[in-house]
């Protein structure tokens, strides 16, 4: 292995400027020959205006179907140390909290086996070890499990669930996002490690409708905290915001409420909670004065995904309100119903959101045993193409 420093005049220009530089990061680890070659490949890409990576084959650790993304360089002669350059996805601890000790342990492992380059974190939430040769996968895994870590998902499996910091550091968490995320991750280890679904299935858990993990846009199942009683209101604190001049209550609060369900008479703020859609805005503006109600739980939504291939989707309402009490039995059963039905009838590489659109939400609900409710739709159908099913009684009468 060569550790001759690569010439990188183009990417060197990205060491300048006030924002932290990824090139500096690479150079910090450039004593590692893989990373040194990575600098070289990247410079080459900047020069050629094209990437130099090839499709990965099936690589992984024993008994697991996911967690490793194979990657090969298309210039292996020139950059032999990145000829193999796989990534490992390591399931992060819920909420991304760490101690310095555990971080150092992770660093030790990765300096020993790989490039010393990571992503903290990947877009799905995993710790990413960037650049591992095939032979080091199993030893790395072994050291990781020894340190208490395991791989995350990849391929057509349950993906690493992630969540906002929730009750750990946020007053608005309507349920325990970290507890829930840990629970389901452990509960479905097999589904996480051994791809058996039509395609990937992501979970993301946000403690309130601010949705700080973007669950509605990025998770097949989005669990968004909410409440169903009245917003908690501290009139003295409201007055304090107003008199201190911190908040223009008419313009900033009442005027921005999407349902216009608030009013301010110069002294008192009145919320018509029956019309409130729990958007969080007023609470966000006056966190000392307003808070989510006390009867808390979550709205469960299904189906978000990126554009490939039918166009991007946001998740849509599946259960308007669910009391998020451990061990979340009903929800787990429901998820398994969904996996069974989608698993049996979904096409290869068809996300659950696309599947539902293909077979019809009404039919889907029937199959997983949920009653339709108007909260599930923005409005009822406008087209008259109803697949009427005549009930059996009627049918019998008419059968000839």
């Amino acid at each position, binding site marked *: 292995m060569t550790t001759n420093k690569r010439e990188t005049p183009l990417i060197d220009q990205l060491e300048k400027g006030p924002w932290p530089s990824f090139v500096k990061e690479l150079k910090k680890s450039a004593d590692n020959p893989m990373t040194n070659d990575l600098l070289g490949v990247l410079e080459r890409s900047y020069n050629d205006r094209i990437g130099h990576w090839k499709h990965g084959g099936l690589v992984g650790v024993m008994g697991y179907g996911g967690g490793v993304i194979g990657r090969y360089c298309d210039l292996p002669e020139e950059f032999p140390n990145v000829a193999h350059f796989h990534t490992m996805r390591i399931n992060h601890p819920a909420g991304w909290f760490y101690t310095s000790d555990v971080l150092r342990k992770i660093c030790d492992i990765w300096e020993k086996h790989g490039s010393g380059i990571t992503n903290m974190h990947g877009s799905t939430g995993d710790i990413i070890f960037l650049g591992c040769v095939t032979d080091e996968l199993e030893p790395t895994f072994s050291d990781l499990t020894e340190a208490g870590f395991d791989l995350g998902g990849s391929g057509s499996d349950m993906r690493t669930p992630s969540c906002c910091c929730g009750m750990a550091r946020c007053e608005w968490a309507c349920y325990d996002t970290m507890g829930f995320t840990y629970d389901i991750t452990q509960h479905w280890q097999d589904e996480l490690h051994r791809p058996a679904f039509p395609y990937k299935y992501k979970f993301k858990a946000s403690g309130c409708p601010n949705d700080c993990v973007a669950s509605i846009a990025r998770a097949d199942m989005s669990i968004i905290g909410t409440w169903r009683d009245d917003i908690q209101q501290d009139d003295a604190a409201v007055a304090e915001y107003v008199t201190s001049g911190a908040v223009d209550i008419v313009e900033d609060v009442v005027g921005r409420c999407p349902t216009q369900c608030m009013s301010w008479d110069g002294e008192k703020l009145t919320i018509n909670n029956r019309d409130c859609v729990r958007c969080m805005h007023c609470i966000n503006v006056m966190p000392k004065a307003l808070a989510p109600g006390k009867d808390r739980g979550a709205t469960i939504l299904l189906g978000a995904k990126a554009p*490939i291939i039918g166009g991007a989707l946001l998740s849509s309402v599946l259960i308007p309100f669910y009391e998020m009490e451990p061990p979340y039995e009903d929800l787990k059963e429901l998820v398994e119903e969904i996996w069974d039905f989608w698993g049996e009838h979904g096409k290869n590489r068809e996300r659950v959101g696309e599947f539902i659109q293909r077979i019809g939400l009404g039919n889907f609900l029937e199959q997983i045993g949920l009653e339709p409710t108007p909260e599930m739709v923005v409005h009822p159908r406008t087209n008259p193409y109803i697949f009427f099913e005549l009930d059996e009684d009627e049918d019998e009468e008419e059968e000839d």
Partner: protein
Amino acid sequence: MSALASNRKTDIGPPHYEQFLPPIIKKNYGKWKYHENPRPGVLVHVAESGDKLYTVRAATPRLASTKTIRLFADLADEFCGGHLRYTSRNNVEFLLTDETKIDALIEKLAAAGYPVGGTGASITNIVHTQGWIHCHSAASDASGVVKAVMDELYPHFVNMDLPAKVRIAFACCLNMCGAVHCSDIAILAVHRRAPKIDHQAMARVCEIPTTVSSCPTGAIRPATVDGHQSVEVIEEQCMFCANCYTVCPAMTLNDAEYDGISIWVGGKVSQARSEPKFSKLAIPYIPNNPPRWPEVVEAIKNIVEVYAANARKYERMGEWIDRIGWPRFFEVADIEFTKYHIDDFTHAGETFRRSVHFPRIG
């Protein structure tokens, strides 16, 4: 190997988060009362018990050397009893109980090149993907574009001077691993040339029926080329999604000349005020111009500035545009409206203006 396998640990799952929580969080878990954002990058959360937790948020480039992680660990030891966390947008957060240590921490972070900011009505870290660092599909580099853009937008990271949060995301191909589709500003690298087919390799490395059926527009059909069992692409029917490439390595879309970057605006995720929104196309194409993509940087800066100058307080990018209407957005942002802006995919008709409710131009 099989001896190893027998006492091999598997399916242990991630470590329990609790062991990593600082004592103040363990004590006040689920019992926070309110928070304040006294200055950019600093939050204080006050518990019902009266306890106060100070958070200092610093930027990271996401791509991190273990050296940097060790640096953060050392800082955590010095200032936070060894406790820190990462955010959902790849910033690092130091969790302090001693208010007086904040300044020193911020100083050390700054000295090491990790500025503090990104809270409140600011531009926080750009969510992004692999790019030329690791992915075979990338139509541009991720880290480089992000670095160039954030160098320019840096003042909005360290200040809270915008009408509302501006969330920027980058993805290096239409797979959109950065889930850019609901961002105030989305930077999306695009291919613009139909796949080049390696006819020799085709039958060996790909399943031809799978490849044919992978194309959403039906542009691919089986063909024999120079005696090789392969496929051909009807170029006019290709919209460069690269789904064929995902299932078949012999159909590469990467192209040094024609790949580049598109800009999308007005998406959001939070439910605050308005419902979540997709980002919409603003600029269909800007050529790749490494190492600093000046045209991309300029275009984004312009959009941020126009927004900052015109939106009302608390109005996210998309809320502002919805209020003034898209015709006026194109006017004030001085962006050309082209046929590419008009949707022509499956649900295109749902985006046509089926009313006369548009504001006067000019």
